[in-house]
Each structure stands twice: as structure tokens, then as C-alpha cells.
């Protein structure tokens, strides 16, 4: 019996445990196993294998029972996830339904989740811009949050490292605020996007429209072919999972790469209840898992643990990892755990029309989505009545003059009208928000989820800074659209709850001082340095770039550090 136990413990012991198999967890799995270490990857959802588990990927619109529309019963049962733009009949099986994992909204928060191998990396919008020192120096310069313990120089080589493997398309635009990367060819701007780009270049110093940089294989390199991935075929049906592996997802890239080493054990249906802290050893020794199907508790052990459960679930796990040493959550000596949560403000947009460029249109579809306007507000110095700034999408398209007017023969003719309409132009705001102590997540005192874990209580809201920034976005875009000669300019705002941006960040922030932050410059818990957090939870500030690329780079860098520590014997 004793031997059996020892064997059993041995079987449950690994060199590293990675909690989560998504955007950042996939990278941790790849890096650990690539360096010859045995990694256990815990995924709370089901296994979704590349190609095999994309049931809708090759369906035509008419092959869906409702031609893509989500049935009313599903909509009514899922008011939260139904608000996500990608929650359609073709991809709804990849989203967590509202009832499946309840949480408490102290203030409205749309928590959009993907519980499966690959997590939300299957579903993301694939925009990948680097941060610069304008971003990392933000909190210190503008006096909010705490200073980042790292700068661009620390992360730049790791951006390069992950970009080469993931495959990022883009142009070398030479902008200090949006550093160039290791790019595959960009998806070019169309006639009106180019027109607007030139208009800004001529008339607005420091404002640019560039081809959106995105994680698509516009022209695969050998390293991508080695992953079994091929060239992007411009389907723009990415949320179904790509049969070509044309965009980066953990499913198509990092996870199969890790599994191929033979050193990776992927365990689906594994809800991490907590990280086990050994008071005597003064470190974390493993994790306690609840099997999502059997509800059985199982423990796994490793000298190093990576927390990549996605921002808010990483918070939840640490908050629920209580011990006599850490009664308020693992590593929470500073009392900042769960606090300073922030997000991106997507609540404004603008649409217009353009009469020119009638000789041009587009053919095929653009997976990059069009252009990207890097942040130009408060970049070099404070110049507005609010802090920080926003990036913006910028896209133009022409549709057919299809109309549903009339009945009979007339209607049929109107529906096949191939004549082109004028150009439609659109933009949406992506604003930085300021992390505040009052925007927090915490464990609910009484409510539990189906696995017996306290429900997460979320209390996150916009503030005055966000409102002012939104107003400025509308003003600046309206002015630029007007001077460009765009017509029928229609700015709009919505009252979406935070969370729908799916860029929730923070709660386990990095910082130099253990008294005011959770993680050091290597993403280790100050107070429990064999636990690393490298997903959105670790973000000290949010900047306005889409964050996934930064999580990938953070993770690869942190694993490199962890393995270095192991080799030095610091983690045994």
C-alpha cells in the first residue's frame, strides 16, 4: 500500500505544472518541453484537437440549421456570452455558457470565456502589436498604478522569439510607439484605407494608419510548415478553428508542438481548485485539481508552477489558495491580489461614407481586418484632460447594391444586383484604462461554483478618465474624417459592460516593490517564487495594444528564467 502511494505520487509529479492551455499556457507547455522538462498542462475544459474537433469549420452558411443565427432559447439562456461578437451558430460550442460557470457581478461585467484546449486562442481577433517604452513607462510617467519592473529592452528579444514561431504579418512601419517585429508580409491596405493613411501623413503629425498586424500566415516559413500549418486562405471564419492552421492558436501551434516532444501531459476536465503551499518548505509544492466530470479531488506536484488560467481565473486560483502563511491568497503579502483590474475601452465607434476611389474595390477577404491607428494621444507628453490614449481600427469596404425592395421578379433582380455601392468607412476605439484599487475581483463569501470553489465576485467599472477619452476619440475621429472628405459621419457610443472587450487584465500585477505588487520582474510571486503568473493577470497597466502577443512573449521569457533557476538548483 505504501509503495502504491509512492508510485501514485511519482506518477503525479512533474518538472513543471502549467495551469491553462490557452494563449499563454500553450507557450509555457511548448517552452518547458522544448527545454527537455516534463510538463503537466491542466485544462479545465474539454480537449479540442486541431482539425479533428472543429465540427463547423467547413460548413457553408446553408448547412447551419439557422444559417448562422443563434436560436432564441440559447440567446435567452446566455445573455452575457450572447453579447460577444463571435458568438454565432458557427462557434457557440467554443464559448462557456452563462450557467456553466456562474460568477457574481457586483457591477455589470461580461466575462467571456472559452474552456477547452486552446482556450480563447481559438476565438481571438488575432491582432498582434508590440508594446513600446511609451507603454511600459506609462504608469511611472503619469503617476498611476506602480512602475513596471521591466522595459521594452527586456521583452523585445522575446517578442521576436514568439513572433517567428507564431507567424505575424505586418509591415515594418518604423514607428517608435509600435515597434517593428519579425514580420511575414502584411495584408495591404485597400484604396480608401490608403487614402486615409496618406491624408493623415500629410495633415496630422504623428498620426498613422498602418496595416493591422495579425497572427496570420500570409507566407509561411519552414517553422510554420513544421507545425503542420499552412498559408492563410483568407476565409475569415477563424472562430470555427482553421483547417489550414492559417492563424495562430494554441491548438494548431504550441500545444501539438509540446505534445510531439513526448514530455507533455495534457489533462482536460481539470479545474484547479488551489495551489498547494507547504509552510515548512516555504514554497508551493503542487496543485489541487477537481476533475470536472467526476468531481474527484486529485493532487499534482512539481517544483515550479505556471499560472496561465486567463486573467480573472488566475486571480481566482490565487485567491482560493489559502494557507496559514497566506490567509488572503497565495503570495498576497501586499494585499493587492485581485485589485487594480483593468480592461480596454471599446465603447465608441464611428462610421462614414466616401465618394471617391470609385475605380477601386477589393476582392477576397482581409483576415487582418484593415488598418490600425496606433496611439497618438499623450504619447510624448500629457496634452489632454485625461490620462493615456487609444488606438483605433480603421477599415473601408464596398458592398454590392443588393436590396430587398419589391417582390417577385423585381425582388430577385434587386438581390443579385452586382453594381457596387459607395465606400463605407468604419473605426472603433481601443482605449487604455487606468488600473485602480476599487476595480477588483474577490471570492464571494457564500456562493460556490459547481466544483465547490467560491464564485468570483467582479467589481469593475468605467471612470471619468474613460468618459473623457471616449469623447476625445469621437472628436478626433470626426475631425479627421471630416477633413478627409468623408460624408454621413456617424459617431456612436454604446454602454457595454467592461469585459466584452475580452481584454481584462491585472489583479496579480508586476512591480518592483513586494509591498505594492504581486509579481517580480520575472513574473514570480514575490513571496512564493516558484509560482509564476504570465497571463493577463500579471499586467501592471493595459496600454491600448491587443495584449495576447505580450502574454506570449512574457511566458517564453519567464519559462526561460524558471529553467535557468532550476539548473542553478534554486527550484529544487
Amino acid at each position, binding site marked *: 500500500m505504501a509503495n502504491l502511494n509512492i508510485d501514485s505520487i511519482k506518477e503525479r509529479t512533474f518538472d513543471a505544472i502549467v495551469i491553462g492551455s490557452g494563449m499563454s499556457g500553450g507557450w509555457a507547455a511548448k517552452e518547458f518541453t522544448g527545454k527537455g522538462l516534463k510538463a503537466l498542462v491542466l485544462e479545465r475544459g474539454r480537449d479540442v484537437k486541431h482539425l479533428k474537433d472543429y465540427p463547423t469549420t*467547413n460548413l*457553408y*452558411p*446553408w448547412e447551419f*440549421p*439557422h*444559417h*448562422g*443565427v*443563434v*436560436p*432564441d*432559447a440559447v440567446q*435567452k439562456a446566455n445573455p452575457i456570452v450572447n453579447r460577444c461578437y463571435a458568438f454565432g451558430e458557427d462557434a457557440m460550442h467554443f464559448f462557456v455558457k452563462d450557467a456553466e460557470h456562474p460568477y457574481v457581478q457586483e457591477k455589470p461585467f461580461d466575462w467571456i470565456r472559452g474552456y477547452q484546449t486552446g482556450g480563447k486562442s481559438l476565438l481571438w481577433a488575432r491582432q498582434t502589436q508590440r508594446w513600446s517604452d511609451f507603454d511600459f513607462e506609462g504608469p511611472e510617467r503619469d503617476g498611476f498604478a506602480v512602475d513596471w519592473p521591466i522595459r521594452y529592452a527586456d521583452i523585445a528579444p522575446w517578442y521576436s522569439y514568439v513572433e517567428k514561431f507564431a507567424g505575424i504579418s505586418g509591415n515594418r512601419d518604423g514607428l517608435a510607439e509600435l515597434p517593428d517585429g519579425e514580420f511575414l508580409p502584411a*495584408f*495591404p*491596405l*485597400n*484604396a480608401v*484605407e490608403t487614402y486615409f493613411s496618406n491624408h493623415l501623413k500629410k495633415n496630422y503629425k504623428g498620426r498613422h494608419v498602418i496595416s493591422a498586424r495579425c497572427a496570420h500566415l500570409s507566407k509561411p516559413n519552414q517553422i510554420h510548415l513544421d507545425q503542420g500549418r499552412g498559408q492563410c*486562405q*483568407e*476565409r475569415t*471564419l477563424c472562430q470555427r478553428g482553421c483547417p489550414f492552421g492559417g492563424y495562430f492558436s494554441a491548438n494548431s501551434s504550441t500545444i501539438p508542438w509540446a505534445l510531439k516532444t513526448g514530455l507533455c501531459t495534457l489533462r482536460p476536465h481539470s479545474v484547479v481548485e488551489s495551489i498547494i503551499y507547504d509552510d515548512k518548505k516555504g514554497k508551493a509544492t503542487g496543485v489541487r485539481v477537481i476533475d470536472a466530470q467526476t468531481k474527484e479531488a486529485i493532487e499534482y506536484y512539481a517544483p515550479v508552477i505556471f499560472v496561465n488560467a486567463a486573467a480573472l481565473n488566475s486571480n481566482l486560483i490565487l485567491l482560493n489558495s489559502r494557507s496559514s502563511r497566506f490567509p488572503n491568497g497565495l503570495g498576497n503579502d501586499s494585499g493587492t491580489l485581485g485589485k487594480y483590474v483593468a480592461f480596454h475601452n471599446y465603447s465608441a465607434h464611428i462610421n462614414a461614407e466616401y465618394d471617391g476611389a*470609385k*475605380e*477601386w*474595390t*477589393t*476582392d*477576397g*477577404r*482581409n*483576415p487582418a481586418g484593415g488598418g490600425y491607428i496606433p496611439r497618438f494621444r499623450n504619447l510624448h507628453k500629457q496634452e489632454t484632460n485625461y490620462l493615456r490614449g487609444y488606438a483605433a481600427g480603421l477599415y473601408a469596404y*464596398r458592398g*454590392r447594391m*443588393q436590396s*430587398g425592395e*419589391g*417582390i*417577385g*421578379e423585381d*425582388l*430577385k433582380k434587386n*438581390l*443579385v444586383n*452586382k*453594381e*457596387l455601392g459607395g465606400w463605407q468607412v468604419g473605426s472603433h476605439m481601443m482605449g487604455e484604462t487606468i488600473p485602480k484599487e476599487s476595480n477588483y475581483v474577490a471570492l464571494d463569501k457564500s456562493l460556490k461554483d459547481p466544483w465547490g470553489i467560491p464564485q468570483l465576485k467582479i467589481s469593475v467599472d468605467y471612470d471619468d478618465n474613460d468618459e473623457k477619452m471616449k469623447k476625445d476619440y469621437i472628436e478626433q475621429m470626426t475631425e479627421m474624417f471630416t477633413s478627409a472628405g468623408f460624408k454621413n459621419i456617424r459617431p456612436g457610443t454604446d454602454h457595454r459592460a467592461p469585459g466584452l472587450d475580452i481584454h481584462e487584465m491585472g489583479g496579480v500585477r508586476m512591480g518592483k516593490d513586494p509591498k505594492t505588487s504581486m509579481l517580480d520582474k520575472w513574473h514570480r510571486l514575490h513571496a512564493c517564487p516558484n509560482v509564476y503568473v504570465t497571463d493577463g493577470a500579471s499586467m501592471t497597466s493595459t496600454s491600448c495594444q491587443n495584449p495576447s502577443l505580450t502574454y506570449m512573449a512574457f511566458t517564453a521569457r519567464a519559462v526561460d528564467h524558471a529553467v535557468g533557476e532550476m539548473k542553478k538548483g534554486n527550484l529544487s
Partner: protein
Amino acid sequence: MNRRAAIRNMALILGGAIVLPSCLHDDKGKAIVELERLKIDAEQEKLVNSLTQTILPKTDTPGAAELGINLFVFKMMDDCASKEQQADFITGLKTFADEAKNQMNKAFADGTDQERTAFVQSVEKQSTDKNFKDDGKLMAFYQMVKGQTIFGYTTSKFFMTKQVVYELVPGRYNAMYPASKATA
């Protein structure tokens, strides 16, 4: 409505085997189409079928009946419409039937092509009238049927392969494409 039932219903209707309701004593009869949330009788079913065919008749290309668009409309109204929309649909359907009877002196479905077209044209005209008060939900009903007919048609295999071709795998993005080529 489940997919299997839809297929079976489509086979029935396409096969012209609409002789079943004779065994029913209810004077209005039971609808053939199997719906879960939307309650309609055989007469109402006939009206909607007939309306989709009037909106989208067979010409030199297939119409609503040939493409089973009527079944798609029922499916969408049954599965995807909200309770409120379904209530409006039923109310408007009754108003539509009454108005048609007034104007045509017979049930809408019993009208000739010309009679039905004339009535629907008059409804179309009202739909552009800003002062029209849709108290009987006639317009709400009509627009739901027309909207779903158009949606079902433009996303049908026929339309997407023969009329305006939908490419599942474009394999290209030409950012600068001559407009003259696109309309050719």
C-alpha cells in the same frame, strides 16, 4: 422544430402529398409543419407558404416553394424569434388574413397569382408609408416573413452557388481590385 422534421416536412410538401389533413375534424386543421413554440393551424400555414411564394415566386429561377424557403421561415420564427416577435407574428398573421379576405373576397392562399401579388404590393406600399399605424401587427408580420424569406433565399445553396457565389475558401485578398472587374 428539429432538423429531421424539417426534412420530412420538406419531402412531404415537395412531393405534393398534402392530402393528410382530411382526417382531421377540426375545421381549420392541424399544420403539417412541426413547430414547438409557434402555434399555427393548417390555414395559417397555407397562408404563410403562399405568401413566401408570392414574395419569391418561381420564375426562370426557383422560388420559395422549390427551395423550401417557407419551411425556413417557419423554422426561424419557431427557433430564433423571441416570444414577443412570435406574438406579433400570430397577431399580424390574423390581420393579414382578414385584410386579404376583405380585399380579395377569398382566403389569401386561394387567390390567383395576380390577386395575391396585387394584395402584397399594396402591403409593400404601406410599408414605405411613414404614417401607417401597425395596430394589427400586419406590417410586423409581413416584414418578418419577407425578411426571413430574403435571408433564407440569399443564404440558400442555390443563391450562394448559382446567383452570387459565396467562396468558403477565397485564397486571396486583393486590396486594390478594379471596380470594373467586380461588376463584370
